[in-house]
């Protein structure tokens, strides 16, 4: 099985095709690890680039993600612990008071597509829930999202709660969403601001020292 073909199917957003090819590759004895590392993850990298160039938009990104997850579901039972070293462990959620999560979902997809292990806390997430999740999962990265200006105070509170739990600043906090700017991110002491889902990935990599 040609890994390049699998990669192409993901980029085209062909979930059925991707799953069929991934299954065929497994049947032919290809290690699940190489399908993941040499086809799925690079394909989402390409999707990210297309998104950044404005060639792909939300629907194409969602379709590609669906294709990636379809294959990933087949691979999971074959992946051993240690087969796969995550690029990092992240917790992502929309902050308290905000129920909008389409933008956050894109960030989760792009992080997972780039090899991060992500816990998605959903939306309207209170600060203490973020802290608990960091504790439980040993996450090095927290991603906070907000669509409404009215949710910005909650974003600030959440950053504060994480800093109180981890005064050393080992846990990196990145923020994003329509009303968020670099200036706001700086003012609340976040470690970084991402304009969109692909920017979030670049930022996450840089902050976790894997540029």
């Amino acid at each position: 099985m040609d890994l390049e073909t699998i990669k192409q199917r993901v980029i085209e957003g062909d979930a059925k095709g991707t799953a069929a090819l991934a299954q065929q590759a497994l049947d032919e004895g290809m290690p699940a690890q190489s399908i993941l590392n040499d086809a799925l993850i690079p394909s989402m990298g390409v999707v990210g680039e297309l998104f950044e160039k404005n060639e792909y938009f939300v629907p194409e990104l969602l379709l590609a993600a669906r294709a990636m997850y379809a294959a990933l579901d087949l691979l999971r039972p074959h992946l051993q612990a240690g087969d796969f070293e995550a690029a990092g462990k992240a917790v992502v959620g929309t902050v308290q008071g905000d129920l909008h999560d389409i933008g956050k979902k894109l960030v989760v997809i792009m992080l997972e597509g780039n090899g991060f292990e992500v816990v998605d806390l959903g939306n309207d997430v209170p600060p203490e829930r973020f802290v608990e999740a960091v504790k439980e999962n040993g996450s090095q990265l927290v991603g906070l999202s907000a669509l409404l200006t009215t949710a910005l105070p909650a974003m600030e509170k959440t950053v504060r709660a994480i800093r109180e739990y981890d005064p050393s600043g080992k846990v990196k906090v990145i923020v994003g969403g329509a009303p968020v700017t670099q200036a706001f991110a700086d003012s609340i002491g976040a470690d970084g601001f991402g304009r969109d889902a692909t920017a979030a990935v670049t930022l996450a990599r840089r902050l976790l020292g894997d540029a």
Partner: protein
Amino acid sequence: MPDPQPERPVRVKLEGIGLEIEVKPGVSFFEAVRKAGLAIDSDCVGKGTCGQCRVRFLEGVPPPKAEDEALLASQDVKNGWRLACQSYPTAACRILIPQTAPLAGRRIRVLEAAAGEELSRAPRRPTGVGYGVAIDVGTTTVVCYLMDLSQALQVGVASFANPQTAFGPDVISRITYAHRGARELRELQRRLIVAVERSLLALCSERKIAPDAVSAMTVVGNMTMMHLFRGVDPWPLGVAPYEPVFRESPPLTGHELGFRRFADVRVQVLPGVAGHLGSDIVAGVVALDLPHRRGVSLFMDLGTNGEVVLCSERVVAGASCAAGPAFEGVHIHSGMAAFPGAIERVDEEEGTLRLDTIDGVEPVGLCGSGLADAVVLLLRRGLLLPSGRLVAPDQVPPDVPADLRTRVQEDGEGRRFLIHKDGERGDIILMQRDIREVQLAKAPMRAGVEMLLKECKLAAEEIEGVYVAGAFGSSIRSETLLALGIVPESVRGRIHAVGNTAGLGARLALTSPKHMKEAGRLARSMRHVELVLREDFRQSFAENIPFPPPREHD
């Protein structure tokens, strides 16, 4: 380093708005415009960090600052673009503001044809003595109607831009400002009441009516406007689960609200439904008498916020969609509000573009309807794929006329379509990312319609009439609504622009107890569908981001 400051104020001409302002020494252009009652888009509110407040100097260009160089493209800086918040004009100049939230001088479009017809059906028996006023408080525009109560007759109308616009163009920014403290909340209420009072006094004086003769007032608006009119902190509307503090208001006196010359007037704020579905929507449905019409009807209010109501004989359900501000010209490269000079129509004529501007003057930018027209034209010509991707210059279909072909361009910043070439003021262009903004603005509206159909267990084919209200709704063509996919193809031929139905409902409630009662009944019985809580809304939103494929014979 501070600028060398002039001793006297300098005069600055605002191109396209037809307004000249005075800027005092040491005052930034950004502040000066705000003081003049206009607002410039800015996330950082004048700190020089967000880069949104870019304006173009057509004459008297000041030297660029470090902030200009950092946040603007070097080509733009060369062409006279500067950050308004970093510009301290020192000599007379002429400036173009691409995106303003207007407070003054805005051409306000209120279609009255449908209104007159509907009003004639209202009972003509006297409902009171003296005069009454109906106020439609829009996020952007406020309209005041003066009515002779003894004849249910309209004697005057006045409209002005909502003075709260200086604190933000949309309801969320007003909610944020109002929540800062009691002073800010009161300031928002005060500005609105003072402006309404001033407008009413002018109307009375024009019609030679003593202010004392005004005895009753009805008020409609979206939920946030209802709260701010009464001076109630609307914060709960801004955070999950987005519910209002009140839905129904007790009768008030003008005095309680801060009116001076209208202190004894009885004021009734009409009831809203829930969430962001306010009394403007209730009034609209009452005005069109939708629950009593045969068959299924769809009511859409396309303004700064989009609201949709689906109505059949057995059920009325409504939803509010955060539609995004693209159709107000915000976040669009060459976008602008509906000022004179805004391109409001784009058509293809003899192989080239025909542009119609408001007041027929030289084009300055694109307002919502022009933006929508341009997108539809590109779709039809195959220059824009249904996915929302502009084609590359070398992929233009062979049947596209030469002039249109040359307008398809691409450079390092991406693909674009040239709408209007203007060496002096700068080209008016449609960028790839502008089209993405349009997609994000139109998808939630259609998804809202789909959710209501689902909630009411109705099919799109069952909709017998679509009634489109609101400022943008009145200027957009029904063909455009179909081509963008805002409404389903099955309603073709059944779309009606109905103008300002909120104002109409407010007048009906003022002059007829029957309609006032109907508004109360409807507000209590309408089912509110909260879209953001639904997983299927998110899915429908994503599905509706692409445009429908263009029709063969178009």
